[in-house]
């Protein structure tokens, strides 16, 4: 602030204590009773504290009415001080949640949701007693039901798979409806097994064949060790659809 360095600091202005300071500021010290040098301060502070009531009360009716209005609304008028961004965000979030709560069941009732969402909403609403499409038109809603079908059905092979698939997909699966099974359900293919065994015999110096014979003796002929010597009976294995990994359905 300009000019204050030039003030005559040697003026006889006494030091005042905290209590005197408080009483001066409260206007409780008359200028005539003020400490040396503080009479003018006492006058200034008294003048500052004597509020010109009527001067500032001309808007009383208007502002009291406005206050009643904002109190009845409990929300700020446009651009008012209470219109904080946080409040607006909360209001927006509330609208979104309300819209979701009202809109999703509505769409579900109209069966207008994507299938997974429709099914999920249907199941949730079904638990609270509200029926919307997507819950009752599914033949098997749980893994337990699918499992029951799989273990109790009399179908076999492709027919069994088709039945389970149809139940699990709500009839949408077309599994087993195209094409046909080959060789009575056992799909087999030719796999040359020549050489492998011979190589094994050669590599083992005949011990492989001896091991096979020994296993046959020990098991009373039930052992299939050595696969019945694939090198000598390849056709039988193929025609019976067994004894070869590639012959499984």
């Amino acid at each position, binding site marked *: 602030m300009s000019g204050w360095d030039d003030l005559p600091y040697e003026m006889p202005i006494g030091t005042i204590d905290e209590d005197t300071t408080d009483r001066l500021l409260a206007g409780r010290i008359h200028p005539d009773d003020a400490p040396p040098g503080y009479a003018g301060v006492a006058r200034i502070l008294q003048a500052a504290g004597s509020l010109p009531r009527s001067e500032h009360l001309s808007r009383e009716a208007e502002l*009291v009415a406005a206050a009643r209005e904002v*109190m009845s609304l409990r929300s700020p008028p446009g651009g008012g*001080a209470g219109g904080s961004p946080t409040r607006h965000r909360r209001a927006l979030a509330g609208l979104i949640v309300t819209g979701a709560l009202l809109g999703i069941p509505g769409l579900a009732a109209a069966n207008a949701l994507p299938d997974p969402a429709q099914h999920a909403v249907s199941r949730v609403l079904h638990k609270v007693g509200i029926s919307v499409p997507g819950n009752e038109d599914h033949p098997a809603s749980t893994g337990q039901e699918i499992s029951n079908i799989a273990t109790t059905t009399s179908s076999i092979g492709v027919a069994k798979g088709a039945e389970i698939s149809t139940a699990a997909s709500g009839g949408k699966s077309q599994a087993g409806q195209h094409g046909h099974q080959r060789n009575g359900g056992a799909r087999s293919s030719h796999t040359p097994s020549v050489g492998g065994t011979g190589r094994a015999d050669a590599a083992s110096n005949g011990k492989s064949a001896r091991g096979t014979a020994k296993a046959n003796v020990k098991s009373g002929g039930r052992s299939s060790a050595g696969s019945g010597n694939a090198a000598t009976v390849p056709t039988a294995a193929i025609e019976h659809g067994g004894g070869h990994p590639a012959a499984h359905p």
Partner: protein
Amino acid sequence: MAGFEETLVAAREGEAEALARLFRLIYPRFVCYVGAVTPTDAEDVAADAWLDVARGLHRFEGDEQAFRAWAFTIARRRLLDLQRSRARRRTDPVEPEDLVGAGGAGDVEEEALARLGTGWAIRLITSSLSSDQAEVVILRVIGELGVDEVAAIMGKRRGTVRVLQHRALRRLAMVLEGQGVTR
């Protein structure tokens, strides 16, 4: 005349007379306080602060002194909002010699005393003191607030406020002595 507590309860219910009593209690103080910083916007800022007080009335609990402190906290926020929105709105400080000498020729003391009024006194305070010192003095004098309340409103420590007010009065005394206002 109803006590403050009854007035507060009735005002919360929207009773016009109770609200008017609260209005008379704080609005003129708001105008003086804000006017000390930005005279041209004093009425508008004070009105906004008053409406903020009305909005928050249902949340307030306390006696009259606490109410004044709470209301001035709101008014100060309003003032700071205005100052932020306008990079520099504050009027240029008036040199105290201009204020004291504004009465023309004659006995300086008599002229000054004759012109003593709230507005004049506040202008002298704001033009003579630093902004912090002036605010402490105005909150204490206009708001009739204690040191602790002023410290809370201004976000300063109690001791800081004490130092500010002590230096403020000493500076005012020097200014007035220097201008011959004080005997």
